């Protein structure tokens, strides 16, 4: 696979070390992985195995201690803060366990937030936001604020927000972790459907093995290392 192929995630020797007081914590201890465009990747492993750290590094919201990350042809390990901001804005969509919607904005406004960051006007962004809400089945809830939505609905809004800029990669950290099993299944099916229909690459860190049935790749992590890599 070529490094310049769009949507490709290419990681080599990735290490991330924290200092917690006097203690050095090795969150990642040299991870290598390759993910092709359009993949639906599930990263599993116990708590503290490094799944979330890996997603943070892939998304450019944290910096590696060592190693190389290349996403959609862009090396990000040495990028400036401004370059990382542009990278996140144009290439990455994030989905968090606790949705992280802005409580002051309604569902539609939350969805178009990344478009506003790109400099779009509300008027121009609204149709795109409406279309995304339709994709996740929430067009009727566009004017509702997060506090008026259920957990599953909030996560759907978060998914719409992650996809609204048509990112190369969607990174989801425990997207079903705060949902009941029925809602979690709906959200999983939704993400899998969007992966198929929109072609966006998904990398999902989870404890929910239900997700593995949709996965094209499953990575298992333990103690900061990638221990098993299987293709679905």
């Amino acid at each position, binding site marked *: 696979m070529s490094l310049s192929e769009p949507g490709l995630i290419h990681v080599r020797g990735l290490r991330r070390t924290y200092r917690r007081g006097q203690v050095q914590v090795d969150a990642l201890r040299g991870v290598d992985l390759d993910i092709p465009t359009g993949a639906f990747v599930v990263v599993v492993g116990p708590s503290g195995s490094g799944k979330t750290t890996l997603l*943070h590094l892939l*998304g450019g*919201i*944290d910096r590696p201690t060592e190693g190389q990350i290349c996403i959609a042809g862009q090396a990000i390990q040495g990028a400036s*803060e*401004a370059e990382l*901001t*542009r990278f*996140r*804005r*144009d290439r990455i969509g*994030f989905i*968090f366990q606790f949705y*992280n919607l*802005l*409580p*002051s*904005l309604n569902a539609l*406004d939350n969805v178009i*937030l*990344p478009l*506003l*960051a*790109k400099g*779009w*006007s*509300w008027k121009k*962004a609204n149709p795109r936001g409406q279309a995304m809400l339709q994709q996740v089945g929430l067009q009727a809830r566009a004017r509702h604020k997060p506090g008026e939505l259920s957990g599953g609905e909030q996560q759907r809004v978060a998914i719409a*927000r992650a996809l609204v*800029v048509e990112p190369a990669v969607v990174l989801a950290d425990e997207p079903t972790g705060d949902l009941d099993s029925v809602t979690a299944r709906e959200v999983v099916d939704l993400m899998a459907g969007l992966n198929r229909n929109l072609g966006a690459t998904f990398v999902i860190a989870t404890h929910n093995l239900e997700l593995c049935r949709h996965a094209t790749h499953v990575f298992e992590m333990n103690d900061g290392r990638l221990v098993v890599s299987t293709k679905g």
Partner: protein
Amino acid sequence: MIAFLGYLFKDLRHDWGRSLLTVASLSIMVISYLLTAALADAFDEFGSRPGVVSHNLVMLAADTIDPMQGSVSQEAFDLAVAAVQAQFGPQSVRRAEPTIFRTLRIQGDTMEVFAVAPVGMTEIYNLALLAGRLPTGRAEIAASQEAVSLAGWQVGQEVEFYGQFFQLVGEVRYEAGKIASLWMTYDAGMALFGERRGFQVGALNISGELDPETVRAYLESVPGIRPAYAVYLEHDVHARYGQAIQDLLKFTIVMDILALSVITFGVFNATSLTLTERSREIALLRVAGFSGSTVRRFLFGRALVQTLAAYLLGWGLARLVTWKHAASSFSMHGMHVQIILSPQVVLPGLVLTSLCAWLAVWLTTHHLGQRNLVVLLNE
């Protein structure tokens, strides 16, 4: 920009309780700032009002704090006139008049009372008649415009002070003076205050060709004048009051700076609280692709809107205070001080408070770009 403002106002509206509280607390300091700034402006206007530089020398008893506590003897005054004429020529003294001087509290306001011959009122003290006429009889007075304004008198009415009734026959402007004054004839003054303490001021109007300071310095060196008497330039005597006002002005400026500092810390606290309580939201904006500087601009815009709203509210309340409260126009040691929220008070205040808001937000957020997003997300 419109998207930015749209989000800004949606956020403020969502957090309206906190926003209102911030605006209300800031507006209290804005009121303090505006009233103190208006007071400083009034003091400044008073202190910088140009006293007319005259060719009058004023001879007073030395070592007295207030001229009314001393007296000038007729012999010493005659000696002074003769000495100046001997040194600088017979035409060097155009007119010399003894003047009785008192500082009195009249109808609750401090006023200076001058008793001098009518010719001295015009030819030495250069009184300009604004209404009526100058006093000539023993029961007549003229009042300076400051006195008329303070006491609310009208020309023609009867005025009582020092246990005697006087007819207010004229309103005058005394250019060299800064404080409220009443004028009566020398004879009226002698009748009112008695002859025992004589006169307190020896006023000499010297030729316009002479340098007043040279004549003053010479006169102070004449034996018989020195050491019992001190000689001042007329405007220097009045400038002492201006200096007192300037000292107060410095104090009010300090109070203004303190008010602005409190506004700065108020915005600082509000912004710090926002950052602490909403660090996850701030991080989310960064994750969504807003740059650190955009987030800082958002926080500044938020603080600026709150500060402007507080300024508007504070300005309205300060206007209400100055409109309703008698203290907005008062006399201090006979000096009329009026507090006006003029544009030269309000507009610089607006700029300064906006700068304070910017400084406060900068102090709170200048390190925001360097903060780890993961840490912010987990806070």
